[in-house]
């Protein structure tokens, strides 16, 4: 009796998460996959085939954009880690009390406005008639206006800026949990700063590093607004290409194939990242 009741309770509790999984994640992806393997052979006439995937590999623009997006996202993730780690270390280990809270809040302030506004902020700074260009001219460092927008560096700046919080938060959490006496013991036993960092701090922070990297990589790969606005029309970002297929070309079949390929790519990169860092997904997500 009671075991029946508890089993019912278990399923009732499980229901929302199952519903969420099925309706919001599994169904759309199954749909995406089904659409992606339909080839249009005439008006309202479809047959099953891998033609959309073949089209992707036959057109260099498609797969080059795909590879470029992946490499730029990995680069953005690495840059975010390199910038975020010292910030997180400073917040977690070198400040206390009020200063710590204040710094942590300051990291979040940019996220109180929408991504669109934030990106426009960067445009105001970087455009030809923008703050930096004018500033350089006023200082006499350059003779004419300089365009900082619409190149890969601008995209990179935007991507790092948009996602750095998602790197700093898990890093601060894991570094906070590192007992200061472990760092001191490292020095006490004759370790240099680099040795203590490499052998004690980074191994401890590994779960935070990996989970931060996964989130930042996903965000960059799936980012649409930042590459388009800061990189311009020719930013060649894969999500932009998916958007074009769905909205401009009405080619949902090819768009779905692209979407599915992006899913495979992100899963693959995350899998490789976990393998290379020797972490498991459950450990990473469980600790941070």
């Amino acid at each position, binding site marked *: 009796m009671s075991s029946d009741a508890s089993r019912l309770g278990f399923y009732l509790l499980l229901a929302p998460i199952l519903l969420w999984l099925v309706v919001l994640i599994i169904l759309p992806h199954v749909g995406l996959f089904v659409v992606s393997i339909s080839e249009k052979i005439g008006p309202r006439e479809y047959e099953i085939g891998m033609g959309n995937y073949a089209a992707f590999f036959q057109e260099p623009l498609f797969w080059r954009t795909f590879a470029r997006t992946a490499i730029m996202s990995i680069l953005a993730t690495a840059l975010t880690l390199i910038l975020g780690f010292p910030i997180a270390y400073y917040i977690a280990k070198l400040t206390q009390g009020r200063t710590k809270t204040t710094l942590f809040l300051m990291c979040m302030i940019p996220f109180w406005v929408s991504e669109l506004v934030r990106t426009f902020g960067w445009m105001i700074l970087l455009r030809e008639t923008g703050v930096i260009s004018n500033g350089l001219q006023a200082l006499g460092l350059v003779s004419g206006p300089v365009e900082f927008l619409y190149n890969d560096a601008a995209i990179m700046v935007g991507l790092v800026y948009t996602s750095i919080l998602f790197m700093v938060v898990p890093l601060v959490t894991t570094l906070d949990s590192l*007992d200061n*006496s*472990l760092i*001191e*013991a*490292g*020095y*006490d*036993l*004759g*370790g*240099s700063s680099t*040795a203590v960092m490499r*052998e*004690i701090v980074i*191994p*401890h922070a590994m779960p935070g590093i990996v989970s931060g990297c996964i989130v930042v990589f996903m965000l960059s790969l799936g980012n649409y607004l930042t590459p388009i606005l800061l990189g311009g029309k020719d930013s060649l970002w894969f999500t932009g290409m998916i958007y074009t297929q769905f909205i401009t070309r009405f080619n949902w079949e090819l768009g779905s194939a692209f979407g599915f390929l992006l899913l495979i790519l992100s899963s693959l990169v995350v899998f490789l990242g976990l393998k290379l860092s020797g972490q498991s997904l459950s450990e990473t997500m469980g600790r941070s």
Partner: protein
Amino acid sequence: MLPAPPDLICRDITKHFDAFRAVDHVNFEVPQGSFFSILGPSGCGKTTLLRMIAGFQEPTSGDLLIKGKSVIGVPPNRRPVSMVFQHLALFPTMNIGDNVGFGLRQRGVARAEIRRRVDDVLDRVGLPGVSARRVDQLSGGQKQRVAIARCMVLEPDVLLLDEPLGALDQKLREHMKVELKSLQAAFNTTFVYITHDQSEALVMSDNVAVMNKGQFEQIGPPQEVYHRPATAFVAGFVGDANTFEAKVTAVNGSMLTLATQTGAQMNVSAPQSGFDTGQRVDVFLRPEAIELVASDMAAQNGDNISPGTVTSVLFNGANSALTVRDTATGAMINVALPQTGAFAGIGTGDTVYTRWDPTKARCYAAPGVK
């Protein structure tokens, strides 16, 4: 040839945290191969002092010499001292062998040599063959020994220990006390050990320093600190004691006659002298210095004899005690109850006589008013 300088010399070490003085003009020397304890209540500045020796904090003033060389300004990773942390601070991301080998790796010792020396030191602390284990696979006492091995493998001039037994249970703590002492003797390394537990300090040390509010009140061998405490604080902090507040009513050479506030008369020998009639004093009397006398026949003569009533019997094996209420004054005193059989049948409500030798009590001028 000059005798070797002491391994550690602290000269007038002072540490301020803003206006607060955590360590106040501390002076001491620790000879090579000896076990030195710093004993004091928590918050008295022990950890701060130890961290200055290890190099994690710089003294506000004063000098620190290790093997005769000043180490002021030398960073912790270049000081010839090692520290066993309060919670041991073993690296959880490394196995035992890597933990112990950490310091040797920093020195660039060859891999095979590291393995040999790690195995050797683990052998010496009685943990052979644990190299491959994870930190969380060891018991509390084993972790303790690994933490010591991790320091000892570097052959430091001085080993610093910050209340390392604090986290262990009572039984293991008793065991580790003996073990630490024998490890120290086996390695023949200078140990500086801080603790708030007087029994740890008394059992293990060659010399004990008693610290209070940032200052050293007394430095000496355990017996001296216990039997001849230099200050009222030491007398109260080290070991148990009955305390009385009293006033000097007569001075006769080194013998004082005192009257307590409750009206009891007592005679106390105070060789340090310097007391005047009318002066307020604090008297400390150890429970084991008080003798129990069953009948008033035996209590014919001698000093400080008074009848009392047993109010409770605190049986605790070899540390058993009685609480006795003095019939004349109502004062409560603790008396050690030796388990020799003589007073085996004593119970609450029995009448006993207490007697103590005037030389066994310690007398100090009361703080403040004269």
